[in-house]
């Protein structure tokens, strides 16, 4: 699953650790999700959406 995490993070000038702290997860988790190696669970996806104040489908995109 593709995502716009890196772009959204850059727009806010957040490091991976900044985002990890906001999500209460490890920096490794943010890195794995951002690079597409790990798809987050629905609860974590909702937390990510809350942090960016966006809808989940605006952050995570279907693989075509």
């Amino acid at each position, binding site marked *: 699953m593709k995502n716009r995490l890196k772009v959204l993070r850059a727009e806010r000038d957040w490091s991976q650790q900044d985002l990890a702290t906001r999500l*209460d997860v490890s920096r*490794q*988790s943010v890195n794995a999700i951002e690079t597409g190696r790990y798809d987050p669970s629905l609860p974590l996806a909702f937390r990510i959406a809350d942090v960016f104040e966006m809808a989940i489908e605006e952050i995570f995109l279907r693989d075509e």
Partner: protein
Amino acid sequence: MTGGDTVPPKRSHRLWVSLFFLSTAIIGALRISGAINGTTGFILLAIATGSLIIPMRRAGSCASPAMATYNQRVLLSSFGYVLGLGIAVTLWNDYELSRPVVFAISLLPTLPTFGIIWAMARYIADEQDEYLRHRTIMASLVALGFVLAVGIFWGFLEMFELVPHIWAWWVLPVWAIGLGLAQLWQKVRGA
């Protein structure tokens, strides 16, 4: 909770880990060369493990509090294992023991290894970071596959008398090697 509690690594961590492996290698070399006997080897190994556990743990970095607790439990169990094994082997070598006593001393190294297995189970239950939990479960499955594959292959080689018999407790070290290889592979992949 994990992200806010992540402790940055300290430079001295590698030093303590290196010192641990170096001391283990030196003790092993001394034992193999016959410079020290088995009992002395176990005592030195217990001292090396015991004295390096605390600085190694303090200097180390952990991705989550659950991992820090896991590391602490595994290190303590490993120390108990070395100590228990040393005592059991020494008693076995130096004394004529009754069967119930032999049963009891076989528990000395066994129970700490149960501690290691329990620590892994608790870690998976306690880890709040779903990605770290997923990573550990995947590495554990690889380790399980590794120990099954090696065990089955060795068993048939042994049955056809190509290799010597080995004791069943080797499953834990082989599993740990598999876990280490899987985690190394995850690191190489950047996972």
